[in-house]
């Protein structure tokens, strides 16, 4: 029993954090808002150079062969800077979907795409029905699309996109028009369903981990702001009401972290509980995200309501993640189905099985 990350994992997290804090500033994010694609090839190249695009790609395909647990701390850091690039999506959703593929075309697909993903020369996105829209479809070299109980792989010539503007200017959401055909089909029936379920869980894990980072960032910003901002002759951060707004985020955030790490672990180790664990992680982390948005907005006063203050970058993403990769109702129901089933073994001593 060891519920800690290794020194290596923590050191790598730290170096990625340092890189991201330097490269992905609020200023650089706002600059991307004014570009057409909203995405930066240069940033992607940098991420690839750091090895981040290769992390979850198996070694035989030129990757680092790491798993969801290795990546979860990185996803948290991506949230902390509100990374405007589909790294988490690709590493946690697209790559495992490709890896877990079997059947006729599978080997060819893997050989074609995984090395390119690892080296940063190709981007692959996954569109599931649960999300209605596909994030970053406009920069995808390959789209893996759900069609009921099938998965299809599409190259840009095989789809057209319509942009859907989100309240978060960093989110690039598209509706995809395309036609399912035997030529595009890559998985069907149970095999496809397993891939879809796995993609769903990993997507939810990703936004859960990012939500931890987003929440931490909002708290850090508000703590800094309220230490500087003076009213009634003292910093507003010295008022108990403001302190408690922050403490109420901080203590809940602590209790959202371990469910996220546990979910990453049980996914990585293919444990049966992973779906329920992911739902717990998603609910806990995105709930903290909502509370963090509300309380840090309040602590910022009128400043928080402006376009100029960077809080909005993180707040709007936290709002959007509340409804992405499965609504609250969906995840609650998954847990209820487990907890209320006659076969559920719960209570003391049954957490790790």
């Amino acid at each position: 029993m060891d519920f800690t990350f290794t020194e290596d994992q923590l050191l790598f997290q730290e170096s990625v954090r340092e890189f991201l804090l330097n490269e992905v500033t609020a200023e650089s994010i706002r600059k991307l808002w004014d570009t057409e694609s909203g995405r930066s090839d240069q940033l992607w190249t940098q991420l690839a150079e750091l090895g981040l695009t290769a992390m979850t790609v198996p070694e035989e395909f030129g990757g680092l062969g790491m798993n969801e647990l290795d990546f979860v701390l990185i996803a948290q850091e991506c949230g902390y800077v509100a990374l405007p690039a589909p790294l988490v999506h690709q590493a946690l959703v697209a790559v495992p979907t490709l890896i877990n593929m079997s059947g006729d075309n599978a080997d060819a697909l893997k050989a074609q795409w995984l090395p390119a993903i690892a080296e940063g020369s190709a981007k692959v996105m996954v569109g599931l029905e649960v999300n209605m829209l596909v994030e970053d479809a406009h920069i995808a070299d390959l789209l893996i699309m759900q069609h009921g109980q099938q998965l299809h792989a599409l190259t840009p010539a095989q789809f057209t996109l319509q942009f859907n503007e989100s309240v978060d200017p960093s989110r690039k959401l598209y509706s995809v028009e395309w036609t399912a055909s035997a030529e595009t089909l890559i998985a069907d029936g149970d095999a496809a369903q397993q891939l879809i379920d796995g993609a769903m869980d990993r997507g939810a894990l990703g936004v859960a981990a990012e939500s931890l980072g987003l929440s931490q960032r909002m708290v850090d910003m508000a703590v800094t702001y309220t230490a500087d901002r003076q009213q009634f002759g003292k910093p507003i951060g010295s008022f108990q009401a403001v302190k408690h707004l922050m403490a109420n985020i901080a203590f809940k955030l602590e209790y959202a972290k371990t469910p996220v790490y546990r979910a990453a672990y049980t996914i990585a180790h293919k444990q049966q509980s992973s779906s329920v664990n992911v739902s717990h992680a998603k609910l806990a982390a995105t709930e903290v995200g909502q509370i963090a948005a509300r309380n840090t907005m309040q602590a910022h006063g009128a400043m928080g309501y402006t376009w100029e203050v960077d809080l909005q970058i993180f707040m709007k993403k936290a709002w959007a993640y509340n409804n992405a990769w499965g609504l609250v109702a969906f995840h609650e129901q998954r847990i209820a189905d487990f907890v209320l089933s006659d076969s559920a073994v719960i209570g003391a001593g049954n957490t790790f099985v």
Partner: protein
Amino acid sequence: MDLNYTTEQTAFRAEAREWLAANVPPSPLPSFDTEAGFQAHREWEAKLYEGRWGMITWPEAMGGRGADLIQWLIFEEEYYAAGAPLRVNQNGIFLLGPTMMEYGTEEQKQRFLNGMATGKDIWCQAWSEPNAGSDMAAIRAKAELSEDGKHYIVNGQKTWSTRAVWADWAFGMFRTDPDSQRHKGLSFILVPLDLEGITVRPIPQLDGLPGFAEIFFDNVKVPVDCLLGESGQGWSVAMATAGFERGLMLRSPARFQQTAKRLVELYKENQASADLDPAVKKAVVKAYMDAEAYTLSTYQTACRLVQGGKIGAESSTNKIFWSELDRDMHATAMSILGARAELLPHAPQAGGVANWLDGWLFSQSGPIYAGTNEIQRNIIAERMLGMPR
């Protein structure tokens, strides 16, 4: 207690309803945080004035109807139910107007009230400063009397001036006694925004539109006849205004009742998916109840005031209640909309999101402006409950 409207009140409602049905623009005006929208709303103010529906609580001689608070509530109900435009000149009509009637000279009333009523002059507030938000007594912007006594020389910076970008006049507090501290030595001054030395810098809001602005004053010469009330008495004059602001006139229960009604409709349209989260139905029922409670309490207060009572801690309790109700209702709508909630209305897949997202963004400001809810809770504890400072 008699919870029936009088025949006169019912007739008044019918008259308002008829006029609104004939005059409210068939489709919503563009946001008054855009230049075109601002102009359209200014024209709507003029139309309201023509029908004598612009400032119904003002005396008849000033173009009003001398309406009492019950009539005002009835009119607001009809106004919101008709989907009429927001009031671009609310700062003028509901805040400055009544203050001017109490503190203004005869000459000032003649000079300002008609322009305010007709929509010719749109007014904005110039109260907050970068370091004087919740703590209004920390104001530093100066207005020094010129040597010839004809002008105030105004210097300093105001911020969070709602709708200041295209407004004509501002009213606010300035320190006329440079050596004074806190609440003393402040004066309430009216400032035409086209004077030399004034720079208005728009502040974009969360939705990207410049809903408020900073106003910079660089040796601006404001004629002395723009002083409202006595010099150095600005705090008392402003407190009258603040009382109005936090009080009844700007937080019409009708607005929240209509939001609750739209929420019920949204829920019914999406009931199958919404009921997957059992909290939603509960929240919809609560929205209805709380909007009702806000209405009931407002009527009670209005009846008390009509009978000669004074407004008490209601201005703090109602600030917390409506702002948290508004945020909660919009949060529930966002839950119902699910994956669509984040989309702007023009997004191809946004079907049915209406203006809930806009409302959600706007509702974020409720617990902050006009005195944060933390400050209101302090006021309730200290003034209403008598807890130690």
